[in-house]
C-alpha cells in the first residue's frame, strides 16, 4: 500500500503521540469540553452532529459505566480516509479516544473496525500495546490518579449498515445490525444500555489537535458553519486519487483542479448515499451548509454512463439495507427495478414520478439514515442527468 508524506493544515499538521492526552489531563474535563465547544467541531461521519453536545450529554450522565466508541466501520462507497488515518495516524485516533474517556468519564473505549479492514487489526493492536507500555492506556494514565482507560478493537463482519451508530451498538451487543428506535439516543442508552458516545475516526483525530491547539485555532479553518478542515477521499476519473485534507468551503471545481480531473461530467458527493452534482453546479462548496459529505468524492468524466452509476448504487442499497423497515427494504428494490426499466427502455414517465415520490417517502419514513439517504442518488441523478438518461440514447442505456 502506498504511503506518502501528507500535507494538511489541521489533521495532517504536526502531532506527537500522547500530546493530547498530556494536555487534557492537565486540565479539568470542563476545560477540555470548553475547547471542543469553541471549535464547533461537527461529526465527520456525515451526519454533522456537534461533537461537544454529544460529549456533554454523556459527561453529564450519572452512570457508573460509560463508553466511547470509535466508529471505524467506514463503508460508504468512495470513502477510505479512515483507512489512511488508522494506518498512518493511529496516534491521533487513539489519543482522541483517551481524551474522550477522560472528558466523559468512560473507562472503556471500543474501536468498531469494519471486517474488510481485518488486515490492519494486528498493527493497531500492537500500537495499543505500546500505548499500554507507555502508560498512555491502563490505570492512572500518565500519573493521573484514578484515570483508568483502555481500548479494545472489535471487528465488524461485512455489513454497511453497522456504520449507523445504533446498528453498530446492536452489532457490538451480538445482534443483527438493525438500527434502533430513537429516542432513546445512545448518549442516554447506548452500549449495554449505558451512556455512550459514538464518534467517527476523523472526529477523534480532530479532537486530538483541538485539545492541544484550542478551539479558536481550529475555527480559523473552514467556514462559519463548517469549522476546521476535512479529509476528502477522492476516487474515480482523476489523475491523483487519494486522501486530501482541505478546509471546509473548498469549491468542487477547486478540488477537481487539485486532483487532476479532466472532462468531468459529475461528482458524487457523500458516496452512494450522497448527491450527484452536475457540471453546472461545480462552483458549489463542500460544507455542511452546501454540499455535505462524510468525505467521499467520486468523479465521473464524460465517458461514464450515469444510469450505470445509479444502478451500481441501488444494487448496493438493496443488498446492504438491514431489511427491517418497509420503506428501505422494499423501496430500494423498487428504485432499482425502476433503473432497470429505464435500461430496457420499458418505463413510463408517470411511473418514474411515482418512484421519485416513493423516494420522498423513504427519506422521511425510513427508520435510520441508510433508508433516509438511499434515494438521494436516485433523485439527484434522474433530476440532473435526465437529458442523458431519457433522451441521450433513446432510453436504451445499457452498459
Amino acid at each position, binding site marked *: 500500500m502506498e504511503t506518502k508524506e501528507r500535507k494538511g493544515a489541521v489533521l495532517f499538521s504536526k502531532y506527537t503521540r500522547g500530546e493530547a492526552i498530556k494536555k487534557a489531563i492537565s486540565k479539568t474535563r470542563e476545560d477540555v469540553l470548553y475547547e471542543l465547544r469553541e471549535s464547533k467541531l461537527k461529526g465527520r461521519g456525515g451526519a454533522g452532529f456537534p461533537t461537544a453536545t454529544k460529549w456533554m450529554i454523556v459527561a453529564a450522565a450519572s452512570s457508573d459505566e460509560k463508553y466511547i466508541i470509535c466508529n471505524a466501520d467506514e463503508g460508504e462507497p468512495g470513502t477510505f480516509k479512515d483507512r489512511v488515518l488508522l494506518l498512518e495516524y493511529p496516534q491521533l485516533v487513539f489519543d482522541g479516544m483517551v481524551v474522550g474517556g477522560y472528558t466523559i468519564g468512560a473507562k472503556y473505549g471500543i474501536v468498531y473496525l469494519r471486517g474488510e479492514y481485518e488486515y490492519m487489526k494486528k498493527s493497531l493492536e500492537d500500537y495499543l500495546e505500546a500505548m499500554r507500555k507507555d502508560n498512555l492506556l491502563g490505570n492512572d494514565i500518565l500519573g493521573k490518579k484514578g484515570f483508568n482507560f483502555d481500548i479494545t478493537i472489535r471487528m465488524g463482519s461485512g455489513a454497511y449498515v453497522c456504520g449507523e451508530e445504533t446498528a453498530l451498538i446492536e452489532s457490538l451487543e451480538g445482534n443483527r445490525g438493525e438500527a434502533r428506535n430513537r429516542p432513546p439516543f445512545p448518549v442516554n442508552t447506548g452500549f449495554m444500555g449505558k451512556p455512550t458516545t459514538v464518534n467517527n475516526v476523523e472526529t477523534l483525530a480532530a479532537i486530538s489537535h483541538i485539545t492541544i491547539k484550542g478551539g479558536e485555532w481550529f475555527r480559523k479553518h473552514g467556514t462559519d458553519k463548517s469549522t476546521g478542515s476535512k479529509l476528502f477521499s477522492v476516487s474515480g476519473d482523476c489523475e491523483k486519487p487519494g486522501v486530501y485534507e482541505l478546509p471546509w468551503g473548498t469549491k468542487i471545481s477547486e478540488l477537481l483542479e487539485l486532483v487532476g480531473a479532466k472532462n468531468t461530467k459529475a461528482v458524487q458527493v457523500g458516496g452512494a448515499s450522497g448527491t450527484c452534482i452536475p457540471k453546472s453546479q461545480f462552483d458549489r462548496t463542500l460544507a455542511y451548509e452546501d454540499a455535505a459529505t462524510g468525505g467521499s468524492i467520486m468523479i465521473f468524466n464524460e465517458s461514464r454512463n450515469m444510469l450505470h452509476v445509479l444502478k451500481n448504487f441501488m444494487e448496493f442499497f438493496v443488498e446492504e439495507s438491514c431489511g427491517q423497515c418497509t420503506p428501505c427494504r422494499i423501496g430500494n428494490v423498487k428504485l432499482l427495478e425502476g433503473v432497470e426499466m429505464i435500461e430496457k427502455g420499458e418505463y413510463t414517465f408517470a411511473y418514474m414520478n411515482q418512484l421519485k415520490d416513493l423516494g420522498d417517502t423513504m427519506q422521511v*419514513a425510513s427508520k435510520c439514515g441508510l433508508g433516509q439517504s438511499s434515494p438521494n442518488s436516485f433523485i439527484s441523478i434522474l433530476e440532473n442527468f435526465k437529458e442523458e438518461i431519457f433522451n441521450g440514447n433513446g432510453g436504451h442505456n445499457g452498459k
Partner: protein
Amino acid sequence: MENKDNLRAPVSQKSLTVEKPTDLTTIGGTITVEINEKKVSVPLGTTILEACKIAGISIPTLCNHEDLCVAGVCRICVVEVEGMRTLQASCAYPITAPMKIKTSTPMVRKARRNIIDLLLSEHYGECYSCFRNGKCELQALAKEYGVDSYPYGHVDKPKYEVDNSSYSVIRDMSKCILCKRCVRTCIDLQEVGVLEAIDRGDKTHISTFLDKPLADVICINCGQCINRCPTAALRANDPSDEIWAAIDDPTKHVVIQTAPSPRAAIGEEFGLGAGHSMTRELNTALKRIGFDKVFDTNFTADLTIIEEGTELILRLYKALVKKESIALPQLTSCSPGWVKFLEHYYPEYIDNLSSAKSPQQMFGALIKTFYAKKAGIDPKDVVSVALMPCSAKKFECNRPEMNSSGYKDVDYGLTTREMARMIKEAGINLPEMPKGDFDNPFGEASGAGLIFGATGGVMEAALRSVVEFVLGVKVEDVFANANIIPLRGFEGVKYVEIPLGEKMGPVPDILKHLVPNWDWLKGVTLKVAVAHGTANAKKVMDNIKAGGKFSECHFVELMACPGGCIGGGGQPIPTTPEIRKKRAEAIYAEDESLTLRKSHENPHVVQIYEEFLTEGPCGHLSHKLLHTHYTKRGRYIA
C-alpha cells in the same frame, strides 16, 4: 403484558418503557402535547401512539402489538412532529417533552399510502382465496386507505414454499410482511425461540434454524405466533375438510368434545364482544352441523383432577412416608405446548410431569372404549373430534403413543377459529341458536373442569377436591364460595401456601386402597405454584433447577399460553390482555352459576369408577387408558 420486565428484548426497546410516575400531580409527571392542534396531557413516557388514542385519534399500526415489545419497523404509524425533519414512528416514540404532533398531513398520508402499496407489492396471493379474508390487518388498511391499484406491482408467484410440515402451524412466508410479531412472540413472549429474521436487505425473511421445516425444530406448537400474525402468513393446520367428509359419510359415527375456552371465545367470531359464553348454543349448532354426539371435555377435566390428584397424593405418600426418592414437584401435563417445551428444554424433569393425560386425550381413549362399547358401535367407525382453543392439541392427538384405545384416540383437533368457520359454512348464526344439552353418558360436568381454561384453574380445581378429600371439610368453609382467589388473575407466576393444620378427615372410599389415613400430612404446608406462558414456565423451571423456592413446591400448574387456554393459539384473533381477561371472567362466571363445582362430586365421574375403571384412580385400566409417557427430546436439532 404479564412479564414485560423480563422480556429478552433488546436493551434499547426495554428502556423505551419509561417508568411512568405514580403520582401524576408532581412536576414532570405529565406532559402536555398538542395533537392536531388539540392539547392532551399524558403521563411522561407515553408513546405518541398511546397519546393519540387518548386524544381519540386513530393511527394505523401493523408491527405494533399490545402483548409485545416495540419494534417500529413497519413505519405505517408515522406522524409529523414539529421541528423534526423526518417522520416519527408513533408506536416507538416515548413522549418526554412537550411537542406538536400532526397525524394527517400530506407527507404523512403519502408515506402511509406508499408503505401500504410497497407491502402489497410483495404480498403474494389475493384475498378471495385467503383464510384471513375479512380478518386481515393488511387488507383492512388497504381498504381504509382506498387502495384501488398496485402502483408498485404485485407478485404473481409465491416467493417461498409453504411449510406444512407441522401438525399444528403452517407457514406461508409469501404472505409475510416482516412485522416480526411472530419473532417477538416466539423469542420474547414465549421464550421458545424458533423464529427469527434471516438474511438481510431484500432477502430478509422470517425463518427457523437453518431454514428447517417447522416440524424439525423445537417449535412447541403453541400457535401464539398465529394469534399475532396480521396476515395469513401463519395459520393452523386445518382438518375441517376431513371432518366434513366424516360427517357426510353415513358409516361414520362422528363425535365431538368441546373444551371450555373455545366456548367462552367463539362468540367473538360471530361479532359478539369478548366474554360471551356460547356453551349451550354451540351444543345445538354442532348437532345441526351433523355431529352425532356432543360431549363436554370438562368431564375428563374432572377425571384428570381425580387421576392427577391421586397421582400427587401417591407421590407425596411415597416421598413423605416411604421416604422413596420420587420426583417432586409434580408438574401438570394438560398443556401439550408446555409438555413439548419441557421435553425440549428440561428433559431431565420428565419424571416430574404428571403421567395423567390431558382431558382431550383421556376423552379420546374413553370414547373409543367405554363409550363405543356402551353405544354398541365399532370403535373403528367412530371419528373423534376435539374442539380446542389450541394448535398444540393437533400435535398432541398425533403423538404416536396416543392410541391406547387400540385406535388413534382423538382423530382431529379443531381450533375455535376453524369451528366458527364450519358453523358459518353451514349457514348457522351461532348466537341465535337455542340452548342445548350435552350428550350422555358423560352429561354435564363440574365448574372445576370448566375453570381449567384460565391460568390457575387446574390448580384451583385440584385444590377444591384435595381440601375436601384430606381435611374432610367443605371447601367453602376454607375458601369463601369455593373461589380460590389467590390462584386467579394474570400475574406471570403465582405462589400459594396452604397449611393443612392438624385436623385431618377420613380417607374417602375412592382412595382407601392407596393410603391408610392422612396422619402423615399433619402439619404439612401445601405449596403450589401457577405459571402461564412458557416464558414464565421457564422462570419457574430455572428456579427449580437452581434449588429455589419453587423446588419446594408440591404441585405446579404450567400452561404454554399467556392467560392459559383462553389465550390459546387456536382462539379468535385478535388477542389482547383485555380480551383474555374478559374470556376468563366469562369462565369464572359460568363456574359460579353452576351447582356442581367440584370434580369429585361429578356423578358421571363417580359412575365411571364404579362401572368401568373399577380399580379406581391410578389403577391398572386408568394407567392403560388415562395415563401416558413422554419423550426426552432435548434441544439439539439434527
